[in-house]
């Protein structure tokens, strides 16, 4: 056993020493926070991406896009990660706003919808320019915060849920039973993508949805659910639809363990590398790529264009302020080509083509 005096935390610090140390620390922090502000304030704005984490391929590619854009304008590049913590996400953005004195452009994928409001308000207050993606409250609009809140970008889950649904139906020859895996029940993309699948099913009455289960976006959970499905439905399962690629990968591996990989077509959404490889190998029928490289670079480029006066947000139509981007449906036909241009080499994006991928204004629901 450790004798008690080994316990470092137990050593009492004299009160006066404590106060003195605290004061010194506070002083040092103040000096440190003032100094870089001057250094940052002049010249090219800092470009900042705020994303969930660097641990997933999707946001890692997003980050590469941001780096490429920053390099193209020769600016300092900062990546902030929320790690799924809204408080941290907002606090980090406030800190970088203070550090740069507002001379920055921000491209943010808010951790949760409500976070978008304090983030936008902080940017407006500091005079920074911001683009949000995926998550924002329905009543928060860029045109209410001219010119600083430049745009909001999302992708229409309904359209692409329907597209992958149709690709799957085509792959099974237009009739038979399918099963479907959804994401976390309360997530907007999960709901939208499922709605899209239902639309595809409605148009194809010969295809029957045998069961719908939720695997919370995770491959491991998908693996176990698909195994159980094989018991319940056996050969009646002709195809499996998944609301994202990770679950589709878990599905594929569960099929492989039963020697069914490639025999039962699978579809995913998101366009991660493994999924595109699976499409090339004929094991996935389809996936959709959002092109996170585009999201990471163009979100910054649009905000930067507003900051430098190349576009005037107030004069842009609403469909340029809140728009659905373009996803690419990847099937056997275009998978090899897409792999060459987007996976093997860095995608080539014209950073000045601000509205090239607008597919319409976001539905107000």
């Amino acid at each position, binding site marked *: *056993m*450790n004798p008690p005096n*080994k*316990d*470092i935390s137990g050593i009492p610090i004299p009160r006066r020493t404590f106060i003195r140390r605290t004061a010194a620390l506070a002083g040092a922090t103040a000096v440190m926070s003032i100094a870089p502000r001057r250094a940052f304030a002049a010249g090219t704005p800092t470009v900042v991406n705020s994303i969930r*984490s*660097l*641990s*997933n*391929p999707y*946001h*890692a590619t997003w*980050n590469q896009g941001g780096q490429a854009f920053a390099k193209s304008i020769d600016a300092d590049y900062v990546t902030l990660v929320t790690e799924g913590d809204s408080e941290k996400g907002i606090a980090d953005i406030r800190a970088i706003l203070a550090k740069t004195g507002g001379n920055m452009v921000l491209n943010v994928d808010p951790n949760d919808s409500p976070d978008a409001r304090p983030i936008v308000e902080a940017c407006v207050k500091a005079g920074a320019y911001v683009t949000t993606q995926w998550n924002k409250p329905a009543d928060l609009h860029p045109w209410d915060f001219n010119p600083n809140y430049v745009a909001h970008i999302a992708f229409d889950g309904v359209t692409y849920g329907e597209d992958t649904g149709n690709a799957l139906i085509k792959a099974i020859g237009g009739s038979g039973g399918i099963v479907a895996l*959804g994401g976390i*029940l309360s997530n907007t993309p999960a709901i939208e993508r499922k709605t899209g699948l239902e639309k595809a099913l409605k148009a194809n009455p010969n295809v029957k949805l045998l*069961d*719908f*289960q*939720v695997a*919370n976006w*995770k*491959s*491991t*959970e998908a*693996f*176990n*659910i698909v*195994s*159980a*499905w*094989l*018991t*319940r439905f056996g050969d009646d399962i002709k195809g499996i639809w998944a609301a994202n690629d990770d679950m589709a*990968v*878990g599905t594929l*591996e569960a099929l*492989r*363990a039963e020697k069914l990989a490639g025999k039962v077509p699978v579809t995913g959404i998101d366009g*991660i*590398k*493994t999924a595109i*490889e699976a499409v090339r190998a004929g094991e996935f029928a389809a996936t959709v790529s959002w092109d996170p490289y585009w999201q990471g670079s163009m979100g910054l480029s649009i905000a930067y264009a507003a900051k430098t006066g190349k576009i005037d947000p107030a004069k842009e139509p609403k469909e340029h302020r809140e728009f659905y981007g373009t996803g690419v449906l990847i099937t056997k036909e275009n998978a090899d080509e897409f792999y060459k241009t987007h996976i093997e080499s860095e995608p080539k994006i014209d950073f000045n083509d601000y509205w090239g991928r607008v597919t319409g204004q976001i539905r107000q629901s």
Partner: protein
Amino acid sequence: MEPQIGHPSADSGTSQIRSPERRDRNVKRSLGRLKPYAPFFALIALSLVIGTMNPRFFEFNNLIRVANSAAIPLVLALGMTFVIVLGSIDLSVEGVLAIGAVLISLLVRNNGNANDLGWFGVVLAILACGAIGCLNGVIHVGLRIPSFMVTLGMWFIGVGVATLLLGGSTVRVLDKEIRSLALDRPLGLFPIAVWVALGALGITWVIERRTRIGRYIYAIGGGEDLAALSGIPVQRVKIIVFTIAGTLYGLGGLLAAAQLGQGNALIGSGRLFSTVTAVVVGGTALTGGEGGVLNTLVGVMIMAVLGNGMVLLGISPDLQQGVQGILIIVAVALSLDRARLKIVK
């Protein structure tokens, strides 16, 4: 059957003579003796209910699938069991698992680099995971930081290191032998991964029942001060237990990489909660000193049967989480001997 009113048997005769209190006490005593087996009975009952509602549950192929979905959770939960019996907790499961899976994916033949170390790479990766577990133990014991905090930190470090190793991307395992753990079924029976998990069960069972360390773990979990006074090397035992846990998480990482054919930093996500749940549902008390690896086997099987059963019965996804929660509380309520607990925290 003939009604036996006219011929009361000797048995029912004696029970009429017994005083009600005594009978009560007898019932209580026999129930008390059965208590440790409550999770086992719960597992049997659960299987019967599911099997009655969908007979396909008992098909041999489905039993293989249930076993397959239990293999990784079992390996992880075995590591967790000793830690919990000690009265500590280990939150680093997901981090160590991620490091294990990512290291293995990077050391064997893969699509990310030129390595092709095969089983030697696997051994290296699992040893590294054991070392991380050992580090958990050393920091916990040496700096006297609660295991909760040390392992929480190690969880984040683990995921962080795995992220750094791969830069956030995914690397695919191309080594056929590694994949065969999940894909090959010797004699048409269970996949090799299931046999590996059973092997781990056997080894941990021997550690628990046949070695001094095993007995020390229970002594420490039952009362650390007493154990220390009676000369048990508490610190060394704790470090060994955390090392065993880390090694088993590494083994879990191997099986996960084999199952999904890839390694990435998030491969373990969601595993911590299911691991602790399985251990506790099996009847191992979070307070320490009680339970063991066989309890954990039962706990893992309950969770696996439940997951499989809910899909077989077609329970709506909206209800599944709720059903799972209720069953967890019921299982713990049945198995925990609360009468002996002085305080419930």
